[in-house]
């Protein structure tokens, strides 16, 4: 999660840098454009890594409502099974 937040911060800093800086010198411009292309590639990589991390996060295969429903179902299932076991253990023939 923290890594994903850092990714978004990186995007902003990159965009700010590219927009604010506007050098007039040709050599500086070339350097700048090289830096920019590198940063663009880096941004792309970070977005990809953010995607792969999202896919590995646990418990997000369902939305929150479905997940709470499944949790309720599991609790009911557990209660029923416990009651069944108690009933059969206490039964007298």
């Amino acid at each position, binding site marked *: *999660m923290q890594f*994903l*937040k850092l990714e*978004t911060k990186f*995007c902003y800093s990159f*965009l700010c840098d*590219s*927009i604010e800086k506007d050098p007039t010198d040709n050599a500086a411009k070339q350097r700048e454009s090289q830096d*920019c292309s590198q940063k*663009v590639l880096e*941004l792309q990589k970070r*977005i990809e890594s*953010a*995607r792969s991390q*999202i*896919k590995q*996060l*646990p*418990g*997000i*295969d*369902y*939305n*929150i*409502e*479905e*997940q*709470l429903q*499944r*949790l309720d179902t*599991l*609790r009911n*299932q*557990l209660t029923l*099974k*416990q009651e*069944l*076991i108690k009933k*059969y*253990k206490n039964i007298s023939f």
Partner: protein
Amino acid sequence: MSLHMSTKERLLALIDDIEIISKELIENAIAPKPQKISSAEHQQLVELLISKDNEFKTVLQLASEQAKIEQKMNALKEQVELQDREIIKLQKHLKEAEHMLSTAIFQARQKLASIEKANKRPVSSEELIKYAHKVSASNAICAPLTWQQGDLRRPYPTDIEMRLGFLGKSDLSLNGHNLQHQISASEHRNTGDVPTSAQNQFAWHPSGELHMSMGGANTGSVALDTRAHKDDRQDDVEVMSTDSSSSSSSDSQ
């Protein structure tokens, strides 16, 4: 639409949107002046990016809560599995108990049926004991307590005992006439008719040979040479009946 999407799908969609907006902004930044978008549009893009980022943060927060719920669910699943194993174990015990009970009931029914059958035709214990005594008197069921290896007693009648019996004596009487007359007289008394076999085609000669009478009118008889066979037979019989070592070996077989 976002309500039916899973959290994962929402996060991935937001990442895609952020990527697209960033690409737009970068392309706008590097584009030549005539192709650049207006400042209003640029501002809109930036605001859109900010809102997407906020939404992304919210959904990330939701994902962290869902991860905690998932941990609780995993714990519940483990407990459910424990209960399942307990139920299967109890089922197995119940099945075993049911099998044992059904076997016991079956055997009890069989015993009740045999008791009922016995009660229909009761036999006194004295009669049973008498019969058991008769059966075991000849030592055919179990050897006598004093019996040991080398003892000549057998659970079956031996050759000597057979010869001493009625059949053995009736055979010997074929050689002497006195017994023959006695037999025929007894047969006359019993049946009134002398069977042809009683006239004895075969007779033992005093010398020990077996003679065959030829016809009714002829009084001659032919000696049948049985000495060699008889000797062998006697030897075999002696070996079979009186020789303790061979008989014990045959017994052991």
